[in-house]
């Protein structure tokens, strides 16, 4: 719980430091991408700190490539 709050505070500090700097450069795309990535990162880390079970993206990769793997293994059996 303490860790989740600490992550939130760190994310807010990062946002407060970087967004004015980006606003000065007038790059709207960079601000949007930065905020989006920061949001995802904060949400992910808070989920880990609160011990929510987050499935691994490699499970998705494994799910996609398992048929190919079985096909290749069936060649060598």
């Amino acid at each position, binding site marked *: 719980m303490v860790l989740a709050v600490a992550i939130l505070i760190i*994310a807010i500090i*990062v946002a407060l430091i*970087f967004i004015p*700097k*980006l606003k000065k*450069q007038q*790059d709207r*795309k*960079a601000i949007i*991408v*930065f905020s989006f*990535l*920061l949001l*995802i*990162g*904060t949400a*992910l*880390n808070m*989920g*880990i700190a609160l011990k929510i079970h*987050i*499935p*691994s*993206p*490699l499970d998705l*990769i*494994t799910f996609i*490539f*398992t048929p*190919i*793997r079985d096909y*290749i293994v069936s060649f*060598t*059996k």
Partner: protein
Amino acid sequence: MEKEIISSRQFTIVTFLYSIGTAILIIPSSITGAAKQDAWIAASIGVLLSLLVIKLFLTLANQTPSLNFIEANEKILGRFFGKITAICFLILTFLSAGELLYFIGIFMKTEVMPETPTLAFALLFSIIIMYAAYLGIETFARSAEILFPLFTFIFIFFVLSITPQITFENIQPLLEATKASMFYSIARFMSIFSFPLIVLLMLYPTGVNVQPSAQKGLYIGAIFGGIVLVTLIVLSILVLGPENTASRTFPSYALAQRISIGNFLQRIEIIMAFMWISSIYIRTFMYFYTTVVGLAQILKIKDHRPLIIPMGIIVIGLSQIVHPDIVHSTNYNNEIWPIFSFIFTILLPILLLIVVVIRNRKSKAQNNETPQQETENDNQKV
């Protein structure tokens, strides 16, 4: 963003340390599991085949001398398909960066400091990676130049100290492995040693000042990295024996634990761990830098630096969720990673090369048919 240039000697050193990467820790176990005591033969064949793979990468990179790999995707395949393949490639490098952070955490937690949570190691390591990405490629190449002599010295000391404990019976009988198990061993070896070398294509055409010696440097770095790995595999089999090597998660660490010179110089395995931490640092940095710079180039953002901190935060989170335990990690690295990396590091460059060759032939045919429109075609050529 001003262009950053590294010398070809720095490029060779980065290739050498990058190709060793995590292989120095986990390769002996995964390929001995399939090929048993002939794993060193599989590794040597893998190193030789890697030279062909490097030739493929260099041929592709020389087709687009002023672009790195991500920009070449967009230029060759067109804006829509190029962006899709580049995003899939970036997913590969991003997940690999997270996986490597997981790896350093689990290694330190298992062997060195069992009571520390892996998040602490991942956090410390990722702060270094983020700061290195902020400082840029030139500083990184210089740090690799500093790490290289230390790495080589520790490695030679390691090899010399462990050779008194060799028993040649462990490597007999020779050539007992079946063709299928050799195929699996070679596939696993190359997927960790040579397929990821495509990430160095982010450096090669645009970031190096002398191109022919950089090409030689890529070959030389990979060959020396292969020599280091084959030596390590041979030593693991000779000293620990094939069953012992295959059943451990970190066989080279077990090898280092056995160093005992004159019953006096013992328990120095943590100095050996310096070797592995430096090679993992080089590899993690390259994956992370590729992801950040590639994302900035796909989205046409001029400066990639603001993206470093959010990506770093996501990568720290990724490192905690990417593998719930070591069994999942071993299964993924042995079964799925060879296929995943093959598709995006071998088939994708082959596809790009085929498209480039077809385009060159088409514009040459147009040049032969309509000599008046030659200037227009020259502007459209790749």
